[in-house]
């Protein structure tokens, strides 16, 4: 499909694009943080910052896809799916002695399976995504605890697996270069340039119109939840390679970060509208903010509240912009 026929966007449209705002925000936050802490712009610090961002970036991507798919789509279970997948991988690597690389592959498939439970209940049975994923949030989180009796697992430090989480290539952490960047690149390309991306927006905008246009709405929506689960498992693989231990609480509260990033990135909560490239910029914003607060000795517990404020603020912002736009 060609975009040549579309009218060129005016300067005003470009400036009021959410992504411009987010990009300016990254720079502004970065400047502010480097004023607050002299260590902020050091190379080692920037590395650690993106290492942390890789994991929640994957979760945010999954949540964004699910929300874009419409019909009240949301995935609250991503954090718990990450915890459970991490434990699953630990069981494979430590208890069964599997190669960490092989375990990682199986774990991603396992994550897709966890997502398919959500997808089945939402897309096939037509249950409300909010409650379905809220129940799997607790179900998966509790299963992760039960499987380890609250303890932690290891067995990841073999066969050079740690390289995935602890090394840098040309100054970019391996998990960003090899996992996060490709994932977002493929997703952004698919959203903007493929028929799949168009179908995603169609089902997100109107179930009925999409079905009349010949799209298997339920199948596509089912797959979105599977992708979200697989991305959460990929996040678990990266976490395990980075920390070399799998804890049952690894993903605790990450759903808040993931949803905050998706909403801040301009993904409209009722589906069908938003850019994944905006999500990538929002990820940069949140990572800079969190890391800056970390450096300023602001603890995790306070950061949670800051994220909550960002989430509510971003949702208000979306509404203000949405009200001005036609439709």
């Amino acid at each position, binding site marked *: 499909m060609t975009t040549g026929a579309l009218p060129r966007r005016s300067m005003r449209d470009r400036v009021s694009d959410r992504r411009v705002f987010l990009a300016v925000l990254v720079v502004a936050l970065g400047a502010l943080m480097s004023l607050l802490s002299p260590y902020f712009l050091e190379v080692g610090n920037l590395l650690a910052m993106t290492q942390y961002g890789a994991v929640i970036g994957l979760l945010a991507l999954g949540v964004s896809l699910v929300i874009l798919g419409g019909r009240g789509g949301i995935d609250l279970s991503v954090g718990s799916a990450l915890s459970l997948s991490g434990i699953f991988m630990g069981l494979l690597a430590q208890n069964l002695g599997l190669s960490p690389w092989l375990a990682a592959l199986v774990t991603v498939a396992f994550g897709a399976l966890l997502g398919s439970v959500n997808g089945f209940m939402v897309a096939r049975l037509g249950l*409300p995504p909010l409650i379905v994923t809220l*129940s799997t949030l*607790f*179900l998966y989180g509790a299963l992760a605890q039960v499987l380890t009796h609250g303890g932690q697992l290891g067995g990841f430090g073999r066969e050079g697996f740690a390289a995935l989480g602890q090394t840098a290539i040309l100054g970019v952490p391996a998990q960003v270069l090899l996992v996060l960047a490709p994932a977002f690149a493929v997703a952004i390309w698919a959203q903007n340039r493929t028929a799949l991306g168009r179908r995603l927006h169609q089902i997100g905008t109107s179930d009925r119109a999409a079905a009349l246009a010949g799209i298997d709405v339920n199948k596509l929506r089912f797959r979105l939840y599977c992708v979200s689960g697989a991305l959460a498992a990929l996040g678990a693989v990266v976490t395990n390679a980075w920390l070399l231990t799998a804890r049952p609480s690894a993903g605790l509260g990450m759903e808040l970060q993931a949803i905050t990033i998706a909403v801040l990135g301009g993904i409209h909560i009722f589906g069908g509208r938003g850019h994944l490239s905006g999500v990538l910029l929002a990820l940069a914003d949140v990572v800079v903010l969190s890391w800056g607060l970390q450096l300023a000795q602001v603890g995790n517990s306070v950061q949670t509240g800051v994220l*909550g404020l960002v*989430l509510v603020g971003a949702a208000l912002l979306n509404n203000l912009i949405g009200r001005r736009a036609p439709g």
Partner: protein
Amino acid sequence: MTTTTVPSAFAPSARMLVLLRNALLPLLLVAEVIFFTVAAPGFLSAANLANVVINSADLALLAAGVTLVVLLAGIDVSVGPMLGVVAWVGATLFVAGLPPLLVVVISVLLGGALGAINGGLVVGGRISPIITTLGTAAIFKTVLFILWDSTDVFAGPVVPALGPARAGGIPLVGLVVLAMFGVLAYVLRHRVFGRRLFAIGNDAEGARLLGVPVARTSFAAYVLVGALVGVAALIYVGRVGVVQATAGNELTLPAIAAVVVGGTSILGGEGGVLRTLGGLAFIALLQNGVVLMGVPPLWNGVLVGAAVALAVAFDVLTRRTLDKRIGAKR
């Protein structure tokens, strides 16, 4: 009603479905009690049942609050952390020597104010309830963490009726909870405010066209949730005796679970607090019985999560079948 075009074979099965829907929870409760009476020694003793009541009284009020917003087709996932904030303030004021009744009033008002934040964002800011309460839940957690400031607050029951006190073996707090459920059930069924909640939950636009003040009613519902959380917070203090950094966080899911398992439709417009009371009894007895059977408490989350998923599946599937039958009549 014109039923001329309906094949008569359809009507009884729809009635059966409604019957099954209404009878399911009582049947499950009976089955549960029989199961645990056999499987867990001491389950059916008066002392144990009184303990169950005392241990789930605060949860019951949270669940009652959540019921109100679920009837509106909304949700509130901030009730747990909200309880934590109010519990800290209430316990601190009580320890500081304020008169108990004043502490009760302040707690209810504070809860109402926190609920008003949710209501304002949902109604005024037009943010979806899940995003709003997910955000405020995070904010309340942080507020409690800052207030807590590495110091646990130890406090007894503010008034005896909000603690583990019993009169003739009957826990007083159970009577308080029952009375509040009674009032709420009456309001929902017989007062204008209650009927408006159902109308909005069924069809907000239709309700607006009929002259229901949708914004005001929805806002009031979130404030009411907060006020109920305010009372629950003092019961929490009376039950646990200490307010820590994460107080109340663990109560959010069971509260929503009680609503859903009780049969209030998550899609709004159908249900009530008495159903929630049934759902709460089911979950509270489940958690208690499982512990008495010697299953590690880590399994609680698995059981409650599974119960919610099954209850929602059953609710939506029967509701859809019923809608289809009704659709056939038109």
